[in-house]
């Protein structure tokens, strides 16, 4: 070993302190609030203006006996159980299609990409117009002579949740497809080309050659989309339905928000927050188990 590399080695020691500012920042603004959830869940705290008092597990019994909470669990389960199994396979197929560079794929990829640029509040405003009783969807149905299908999509208890799930898909499928296409393009093309020269059909090449090659990535994106759908639904619901009519579109995420800010019960809100967190962790383990790649078992 030359003297320079020894000197470089000496210099190298102790640089890790440069990570301290970012770790402190992360601890104060991210880890701290996350830990505080568990404390707030044990408090009677009627509004941010009042002093909280400790009441232990009382909030938990109250939450678990509340029909609104049951409805929120049901709606959240429906939301992820419909949105994710539809979104991921569809996005993979569309992503594979983009990857094969079909005619007009540039236009397709720009369009698929565009929901990723639009904020949740803008998405909310676009669909507020499209779905309002005098909006685009009902207008289109009228033009097609299907007036009887027209409804107040967001104010009808039978359609509110389904409509919100449809918006999740509108946003999520194309964006995820672009990500799959980018991933497939980063792989060596020979394997897929070889499969096609061997005469494997399109479907077989897609599912039996391309899919196993990106399975780890499919798993990562499934987890991310699951967490996104589960946790961030509050914003869109706040903008479009406020959880209603009744509790028909109240999800766990929205309940956390509504209990804290509209109904002024922070303890209740944070019990739901903890449930949401546990639900998220459980879902991640489930997705990991379902999409375990074979290479990983033997690796």
């Amino acid at each position, binding site marked *: 070993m030359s003297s320079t590399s020894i000197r470089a080695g000496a210099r190298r020691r102790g640089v890790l302190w440069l*990570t301290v500012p970012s770790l402190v920042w992360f601890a104060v603004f991210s880890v701290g609030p996350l830990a505080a959830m568990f404390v707030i869940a044990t408090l009677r705290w009627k509004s941010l203006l009042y002093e909280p008092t400790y009441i232990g597990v009382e909030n938990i019994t109250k939450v678990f006996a509340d029909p609104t909470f049951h409805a929120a669990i049901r709606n959240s389960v429906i939301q992820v159980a419909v949105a994710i199994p539809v979104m991921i396979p569809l996005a993979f197929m569309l992503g594979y299609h983009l990857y094969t560079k*079909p005619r007009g794929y540039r236009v397709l990829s720009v369009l698929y990409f565009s929901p990723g*640029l639009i904020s949740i509040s803008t998405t909310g405003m676009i669909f507020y117009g499209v779905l309002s009783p005098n909006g685009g969807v009902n207008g289109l149905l009228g033009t097609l002579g299907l007036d009887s299908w027209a409804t107040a999509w967001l104010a009808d208890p039978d359609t509110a949740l389904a409509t919100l799930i449809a918006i999740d898909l509108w946003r999520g499928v194309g964006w995820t497809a672009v990500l799959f296409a980018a991933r497939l393009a980063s792989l060596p093309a020979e394997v897929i080309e070889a499969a096609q020269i061997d005469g494997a059909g399109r479907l077989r090449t897609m599912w039996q050659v391309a899919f196993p090659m990106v399975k780890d990535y499919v798993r990562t994106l499934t987890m991310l989309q699951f967490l996104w759908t589960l946790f961030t639904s509050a914003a869109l619901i706040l*903008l479009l339905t406020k959880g209603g009519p009744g509790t028909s579109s109240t999800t766990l995420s929205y309940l956390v928000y509504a209990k*804290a800010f509209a109904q002024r019960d922070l303890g209740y809100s944070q019990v739901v927050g903890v449930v949401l967190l546990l639900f998220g962790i459980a879902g991640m383990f489930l997705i990991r188990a379902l999409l375990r790649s074979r290479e990983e078992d033997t690796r």
Partner: protein
Amino acid sequence: MKAPRRTGLLATLLSWGYALLLAAPLYYLAVSALKSNIEIFTRPFALPATWLWENFGTAWLTADLGGALLNSVLVSVVAIVLTLGLAIPAAYALARHDNRLARVITGTFSAGFLIPPFAALIPTVVLAIQLGLFGTREFQMLFLPASALPLSVLLLTQFMRTVPPALVESAALDGAGHWRLLVSVYVPIARPGVASVTILQLLTFWNEYLFSLTITGTAPDVRTVQVALPTLISDATNLGVLAAGTVLTVLPVYVAYSLMNRRMQEALTAGAVKE
């Protein structure tokens, strides 16, 4: 490298069908921005009979979009400077070490990447109140970098790992200290990474809604454009004005995208491709 070019009819139909589904609301938005409520309902997808350009002016004034755009720019720019200021030194340190402590720190950020920021919304509001920063833009400037740090540090570390050791050795031989190494070797080589992180996080900051709404709030002097836009909804919403406001809000993002769509697509896919 040539990708296979065989196309099934079904795939073609499906892909263009979905593209149409994506385009329709955007088209509807654009034409509605120039119409009255009555025309929006009676001729939803037709071009406007008379082009009501004043919808844009009305939206601009009603929601005070000018002030809101300035607030958004201010918050996003300060937050991105702070993010880079925190993440670049950390990434440099992590790229130069491969011991157990460095792996623990990397692991912390990897786990942090998975936590959706929404999870801790309410305790974050409490924190803002305790710091005396509730209802201010300053809290968002401090908070947004924290939510962006895990991904930013991880991405930048990956890019900084590509610095050739020989280059570091020769710079060290010339007597370069950490600061010189960082500024004149690591950052220039990691420039595509810095660009990606900047684009990705600027977009995230610009689009942030729920924290801005609950912490910065709806007061006209501090609210961001994402918070100002929904104030156009009322009991008697003028859908044309709402659409015009929405167009004005997404316009900066689309202009940026049309100027550098390739770079932007790279940056945003890098954010999720990270592994």
